[in-house]
């Protein structure tokens, strides 16, 4: 067992278990915080896949931004005063069966298909300059459109959240 595998299993278990907690926990606060661990676990996986820049952005934006946002959402919408902040799961047995089938299907195909895997070649220390270069050449247009998306998102959210 070399270190690589050990670290992989640690992160894998971390992510999946915390994701489980997020989904199955009664208390929404607990699930919000479990989400924190899931995102960090995912960041770890990115590191394993030597996508260092992505790991950092993941931590920065998901954990820093979206997680906080969700917690705000939780705080604002569940008046903490009343004790009942638990949210039962919808007793929807058929829904669970459907989801179970979908995920089983996915897993089985993932395992069974012979992906076109090429042998690993040496990889530079950091991917950041390649990403930077690509962003401004090949993916220039998506980059600009992403900026417009963010503008629209901000404007829309501001409008909806405004009181007047």
């Amino acid at each position, binding site marked *: 067992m070399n270190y690589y595998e050990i670290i992989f299993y640690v992160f894998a278990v971390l992510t999946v278990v915390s994701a489980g907690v997020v989904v199955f926990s009664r208390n929404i606060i607990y699930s919000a915080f479990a989400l924190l661990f899931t995102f960090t676990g995912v960041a770890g996986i990115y590191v394993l896949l030597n996508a260092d820049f992505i790991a950092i952005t993941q931590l920065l934006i998901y954990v820093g931004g979206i997680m906080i946002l969700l917690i705000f959402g939780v705080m604002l919408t569940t008046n903490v005063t009343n004790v009942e902040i638990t949210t039962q799961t919808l007793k929807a047995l058929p829904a669970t069966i459907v989801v179970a089938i979908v995920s089983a299907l*996915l897993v089985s*195909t993932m395992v069974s298909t012979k992906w076109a895997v090429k042998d690993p070649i040496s990889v530079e220390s950091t991917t950041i300059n390649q990403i930077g270069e690509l962003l401004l050449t090949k993916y*220039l*247009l*998506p980059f600009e*459109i992403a900026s417009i998306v963010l*503008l*629209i*998102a901000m404007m829309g959210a501001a409008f909806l959240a405004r009181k007047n």
Partner: protein
Amino acid sequence: MLTQQILDGLSKFYPETILSVTILVIVFVELFFKKKTRVSGWIAMAGLAAAMLFTFLQVNIPAQTIFFQMVAVDPFSYFFKVLLILSGFLIVLFTFLSDEIRSSEFKTQEYYALLIALTLGGFLMASSVNLLMMYLALELSSLSSYVLAGYFKKSNRSSEAALKYVIYGGVSSGLMLFGISLIYGICGSLDMFAISAYLSANPVNLITLLIAIFLMLAGFGYKISAVPFHFWTPDVYEGSPMPVTALLSVSSKAAGFAMLIRFFLVAFQNAGHPTITTEGLHQYITLPGLHWPEVIAVIAVATMTLGNVVAIWQDNLKRLLAYSSIAQAGYMLLAFVVVSPQGISAMLTYLAVYLFMNLGAFFAAILISNKYKTENIEEMKGIGYRSPLLCVSMAVFMLSLSGIPMTAGFIGKFYIFSALINNGYIWLAIIGLMNSVVSLYYYIKILKNMFLIRPQGDTGAVSFGAGYSVLLLALAIPTIVLGIFFGPLTKFAEYSVQIFGLK
């Protein structure tokens, strides 16, 4: 070389740039006004007009891809740009004339910005050749439509519609993204031409590809509200403001169809084989073993049948029009089963015709809700006698939607059914015909209420201003004219079937 390519790309990217500039100008100008004004509306109209002008200028440049094969500028995208601008223009007019918006206390500044953003999203969806670009465009138009749907913050209906829309949209785009990742996994690239080259060259595990396609279909289906993915449509259409419903039902659906056509025809086009078949009909040969036309056929039949069948029970006009737009999507998908230029041109013709009759129907619905304060069909008894022009044009739209001869709807359906019969899909044609007979029932039900029953309560004539009737006629006349003199439209549709990258 890099900057040269970017500059060259920019020179072909004027319409989109103009739209983005319009968004910024709207946001900027609105800061100077306190109370509600229509200025941003006029700016939006100006922006759309400029975009239309530049699109016209683009008409005779050869089909090509720009920005490092992200976006294609070809007759196909040109057709949809024209369509989207037209519908955007009309929606802005609808918003001016809809009391619902006028009476609401919200400033309409964001409204028009989001409208332009949605149109821009549509532009990119129609012309994107890269899956990532396509996903981005989808997100842009979806996000703006979430906010538009929930525009009346105070009303329960609108906010509920927005909630359902955002959750449903989010999940669908999530599924689509997972699908895209699978395809990326299989083919190693997100560029459609690379995908088609890869798929036609080396053997691929069909099961995974199939799953990837179904997940992608979740995304497309959500956008054009095809059957298994249509569940959001009735509730969102009923909840959101009337002009937004019109917008969703026409422009976002048209963009969805553009995306669907380009993806399936380009990505799964068998690059190796020539595409001219025996009797001169242009036939795309799909990948052996991958029978996606059958998938589309099943979805089309399901969409048509469910749309028509449930519409019979509706007595809320907006919900009825929602189900009718689902059914119309079904008819268009029907044409898509015929994977040949004749099928695609039939689809495009139907889309153009669908724009006029659907927007017309929605505008009439707006006027009815303005003056009679009701969306319930049963309460529309006898209004044919009180506001004849409105009801006659409503009759024209209804008959055209149902496909009665001498209306544009008939020509649309005529081309679709002749394409089907010409390529041997007799049974699909028959099912389509039976569906249009069933659809006739609920379209005529509205006319029955308007004309055949005398008004009970006050029978005072309710007239509309000149502006309203001019717009009504502007929509009704093309619906009839295109029914008789449909030459140029079909030629334009046939011309714009040339998708970049297809022989």
